[in-house]
């Protein structure tokens, strides 16, 4: 699978502060790439740099196999749809009129309007002025604008911001359906771990401008494997016995942390401890959640 977006050493400095540092992103084709990070981590800045809205201080951006520069930027962007921060719209015009402008700008026939309106389920509101739309409808119109002309890549910055739970759910379903239905690669940013967990197949986690994790969501989930914690009357002796059985244990707050064992293995080892007169007081299963990992990686509390 080739990468549709690659950045090398991408950095952006505002004043003396480096907002994005040496970012090496790789977004594979045909996936939903979740770009996760706490507020102010540099997600929007990065996405704007990919779109050429903000000039990088250093580094390069390659999209669809071409390194983006000032001359080829607009030609490359023809195959990209974007929705950055809040949606862009002309409030005094209707939904259809807004889309007609986008069609003219993209050089796409106006017949595409009905298709995108149907995709975002706005076909019944198309003759209403956009200023009378709800936030959710404006957001969907923004997505419709991005979908005009069947782009190969969608860059969506916090598309569920400001939506109610039903709107969030609808937007998620929409995003998830895009790769299968139209073969579009989606890069979507969010500060919500649970959201990325639900829609993305690949994840990049950014914290204070630095990429701290980038791989498939499955890999991230593997990191959240369960472990066992036991507490005995004599942890030191117990640790010696278990180490002899080739079980790696680690002492932590009166507990011994062990890797996940099968029930039989665990039962055998507990009997061994009891046979040595070491009373086992507690056996607990410890689960490292995605939040714990996120927290570990970013050092910032996750907002849910």
């Amino acid at each position, binding site marked *: 699978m080739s990468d549709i977006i690659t950045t090398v050493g991408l950095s952006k400095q505002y004043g003396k502060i480096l907002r994005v540092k040496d970012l090496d992103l790789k977004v594979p084709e045909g996936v939903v790439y979740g770009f996760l990070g706490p507020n102010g981590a540099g997600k929007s800045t990065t996405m704007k740099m990919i779109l050429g*809205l903000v000039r990088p201080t250093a580094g390069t951006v390659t999209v669809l196999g071409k390194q983006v520069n000032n001359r080829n930027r*607009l030609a490359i962007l023809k195959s990209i749809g974007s929705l*950055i921060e809040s949606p862009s719209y002309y*409030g005094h015009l209707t939904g259809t009129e807004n889309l007609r*402008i*986008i069609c003219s700008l993209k050089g796409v026939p106006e017949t595409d309007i009905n298709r995108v309106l149907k995709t975002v389920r706005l076909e019944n509101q198309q003759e209403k002025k956009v200023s009378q739309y709800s936030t959710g409808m404006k957001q969907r119109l923004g997505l419709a604008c991005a979908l005009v002309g069947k782009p190969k890549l969608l860059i969506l910055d916090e598309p569920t911001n400001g939506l109610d739970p039903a709107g969030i759910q609808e937007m998620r379903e929409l995003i998830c359906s895009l790769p299968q239905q139209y073969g579009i690669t989606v890069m979507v940013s969010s500060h919500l771990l649970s959201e990325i967990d639900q829609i993305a197949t690949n994840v990049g986690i950014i914290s204070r401008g630095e990429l701290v994790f980038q791989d498939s969501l499955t890999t991230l989930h593997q990191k959240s494997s369960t472990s066992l914690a036991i507490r005995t009357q004599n942890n030191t002796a117990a640790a010696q016995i278990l180490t002899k059985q080739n079980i790696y244990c680690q002492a932590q707050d009166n507990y011994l942390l062990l890797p996940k064992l099968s029930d039989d293995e665990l039962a055998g080892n507990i009997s061994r401890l009891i046979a040595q007169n070491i009373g086992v007081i507690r056996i607990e299963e410890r689960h490292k959640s995605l939040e714990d990992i996120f927290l570990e990686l970013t050092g910032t509390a996750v907002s849910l």
Partner: protein
Amino acid sequence: MKNALAIEFQKIHRRKIWVIVSLLVLVQILWSMLGVRNMDAHDLAQGWLFFLYQFPLLNSIMMPVIAAVVASRICDIEHKGQTIKLLNTLMPPQRLFAAKFLCGATYMLAASILQLVVIIAVGYIIGFKGNPPLDKLLYYLLFTTAVNLTVLLLQQVLSLQFKNQMVPLSVGIIGSFAGLFILYFPPSFARFILWGYYGVLMLVGMDWDRVTRITDFYYIPVNWAGFIILAVIFSAIYIIGRTLFMRKEV
């Protein structure tokens, strides 16, 4: 470019810019009518000269306001809907800048032509002596349009730079006062402010005889030097304004 201009007109659909332009031109016309109500034979003989003297003064009061409103109506839609970041992914910013200017220029040109038509029509109706001086009227149209477009350009630059449209609108109003006020100073002063060019490029001078209390108007040579300076000012504002707009990160 044709497409970009067509899109600009699509965008300002329902913004009723033509209403504002025609209303303000209407006010100008009514104002000018006040001056021609009680004309005697002497006045009627100088009717065309009188209009060519009076309208630049009216223009320096009202055209900066019209230009400010037109530019603001065309540009503020981009701030309101935060559309510049979207447009920047779809078209070169310099083309957007040019299309916006051409769109506004159409209205300003329409205002000047409308005004010229009214000048000729009113002249005939009141019964000004002699045929309308076509060459002078065409110069008048050229110069009025040239100043209008330069003022419009300045207003567009401001309207694109500032989200709060009170800033460019205030500049427009201040400009209109400044343009009129500067005309009370020696003529060389007016060259130093943009809004003074309605006066600088005037084709008619006035002589008021203190003893007889008779006003006489006379043609003065076309001020090509002033026109060239105006062209230079226009180019400078265009280059600076466009660069500012292109550099703006959204």
